[in-house]
């Protein structure tokens, strides 16, 4: 028999992101005997899915849930270091000669502060679980105050006890509309209607193909049933094949123009309706947060639903020692993220990939993948959505680049390469660094080009919307500072 390794001799797994995937990864890496550092920008683990009210408001009310138990088990573990309010702003790859995952640069403290301690972590293995954010397609007036990404409305209820309005319209596509409607209703907000842009035929064809796969997601099915029942109880209409094509108002949103859509999301002429609203919440799917996987050098996989991190059967990316889990490998919701995280954490910790205990996890992971494919098939973004745009419609919210400017730059024969368009129109050069407009600009310019896009500039990697040397904002003063000593020991957590 051998003695258990001392803390400093244990394999060190760094997990970035403490949502369902990241927390599950931390839990299984600890179970496999590793020392874990878990970092998240929030004050408490949970991510958007398990976002809870702050302690000032009575704290988490889910004390007995599976997630709450896992959270306690991870945070109380003697070999776990929890870095709350911590941004991972860069990953630094070692020399090509040196094997191993990248070094992890962190800043800890209140968001966008100016004197946050800087640390550098040197993991034996890295699990990336940063999640995703709403994708919102532009439409005239979407920049008006009072128009929110649906995730914002949900976050405000879950984390701040705040309803965005009394006359709320929810529009877009995907099952995420339902929990957002639920959150608003339980907070006492008035929800006028929920609009799913895809037609009943598209949604039904996506979900009911291979119906036995749905039966494998009982948690998701029950969640949807609960949400639907609540809509019925509150007499909130759920309409398909209709969406918001314009927001209007003086200084803030006051009315929304909705219209009936064909399956390709082109507007049925004459179907427009104007409804008074005090808030409009919109979601058209999710954008995976790919800055860190790209900084780590991970290869991406192109799917009909967009680009995601390519992983093997053990959640291993193409970079040695780097694992990925959750929405960055495919949009499939919390249950799927949890199984991917459990597998990633175990393998990253050096656990036996053939351990019998993993059979069920692997089976659930495959079900999660099938669920992601069905989700993408049932709620695609219709190709005719740019028909909603007018020349003056804002595309890049930061720089206020409009569609007309983007269109003339993209169709200008003298140079339609992504970088040229960026510099000519400023789209993507503002503070958010194309996080919001990037996917839209990429899609619109790809369509507007008749010739293939220009060759990448000599000596530079091809432009990619998520390639950002700095993954999170860092102030120049913080950048200039020397890192604040070595990594913290377990039980010196920042929480």
């Amino acid at each position, binding site marked *: 028999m051998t003695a258990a390794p001392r803390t400093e001799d244990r394999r060190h797994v760094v997990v970035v992101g403490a949502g369902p995937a990241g927390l599950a990864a931390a839990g299984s890496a600890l179970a496999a005997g590793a020392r874990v550092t878990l970092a998240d920008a929030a004050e408490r683990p949970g991510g958007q899915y398990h976002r809870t009210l702050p302690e000032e408001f009575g704290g988490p009310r889910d004390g007995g849930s599976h997630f709450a138990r896992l959270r306690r088990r991870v945070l109380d573990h003697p070999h776990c270091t929890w870095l709350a309010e911590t941004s991972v702003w860069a990953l630094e790859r070692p020399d090509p000669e040196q094997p191993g995952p990248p070094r992890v640069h962190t800043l800890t403290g209140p968001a966008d502060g100016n004197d946050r301690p800087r640390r550098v972590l040197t993991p034996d293995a890295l699990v990336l679980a940063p999640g995703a954010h709403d994708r919102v397609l532009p439409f005239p007036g979407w920049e008006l105050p009072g*128009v929110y990404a649906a995730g914002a409305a949900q976050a405000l209820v879950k984390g701040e006890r705040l309803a*965005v309005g009394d006359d709320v319209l929810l529009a877009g596509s995907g099952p995420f509309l339902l929990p957002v409607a639920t959150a608003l209703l339980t907070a006492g907000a008035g929800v006028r209607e929920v609009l799913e842009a895809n037609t009943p035929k598209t949604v039904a064809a996506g979900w009911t193909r291979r119906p036995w796969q749905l039966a494998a997601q009982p948690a998701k099915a029950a969640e949807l049933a609960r949400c639907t029942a609540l809509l019925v109880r509150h007499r909130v209409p759920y309409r398909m094949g209709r969406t918001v094509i314009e927001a209007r108002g003086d200084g803030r949103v006051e009315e929304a123009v909705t219209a009936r859509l064909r399956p390709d999301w082109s507007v049925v002429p004459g179907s427009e309706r104007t409804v008074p609203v005090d808030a409009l919440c919109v979601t058209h799917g999710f954008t995976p947060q790919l800055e860190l996987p790209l900084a780590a050098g991970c290869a991406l996989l192109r799917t009909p639903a967009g680009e995601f991190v390519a992983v093997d059967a053990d959640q291993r990316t193409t970079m040695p020692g780097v694992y990925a889990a959750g929405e960055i490998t495919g949009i499939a919701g919390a249950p799927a993220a949890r199984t991917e995280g459990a597998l990633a954490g175990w393998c990253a910790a050096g656990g036996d990939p053939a351990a019998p205990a993993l059979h069920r996890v692997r089976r659930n992971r495959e079900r999660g993948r099938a669920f992601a494919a069905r989700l993408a098939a049932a709620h695609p973004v219709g190709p005719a959505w740019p028909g909603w745009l007018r020349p003056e419609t804002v595309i890049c*919210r930061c720089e206020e680049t409009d569609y007309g400017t983007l269109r003339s730059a993209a169709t200008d024969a003298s140079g339609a390469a992504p970088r040229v368009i960026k510099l000519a129109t400023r789209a993507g050069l503002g503070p958010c660094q194309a996080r919001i407009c990037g996917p839209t600009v990429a899609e619109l310019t790809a369509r507007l080009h008749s010739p293939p896009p220009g060759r990448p500039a000599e000596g530079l990697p091809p432009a990619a919307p998520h390639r950002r040397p700095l993954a999170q904002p860092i102030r120049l003063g913080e950048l200039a500072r020397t890192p604040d000593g070595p990594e913290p020991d377990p039980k010196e957590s920042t929480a």
Partner: protein
Amino acid sequence: MSPRPVRTAPGAPERPLQITVDGDPVEGVAGRSIAGILLAAGRTSWRTARSGAPRGVFCGIGVCFDCVLTVNGVPDVRACRRRATDGDVVTTQTRAAADNGEAGA
């Protein structure tokens, strides 16, 4: 109506706090972000874009930077990500001013 606070956890005591926004006192409660306090006070916008158009919260989770403002002299703080503390001195920003100073990386 504007955004408003709701009580989903009755019985939890609320600790009031006060911040100033462009010199005016704004009442809030501990636990909310600065964006949450401004929304609860009925303000949906507090920044102007380059064209002068008003902006407030859009993504709500720190991605879009539409809600940035200056907190205790530090510019470009995402209001949706910053927890308010009693006595915070907040000033609103215009994009034109941000262009002259330190812009978010």
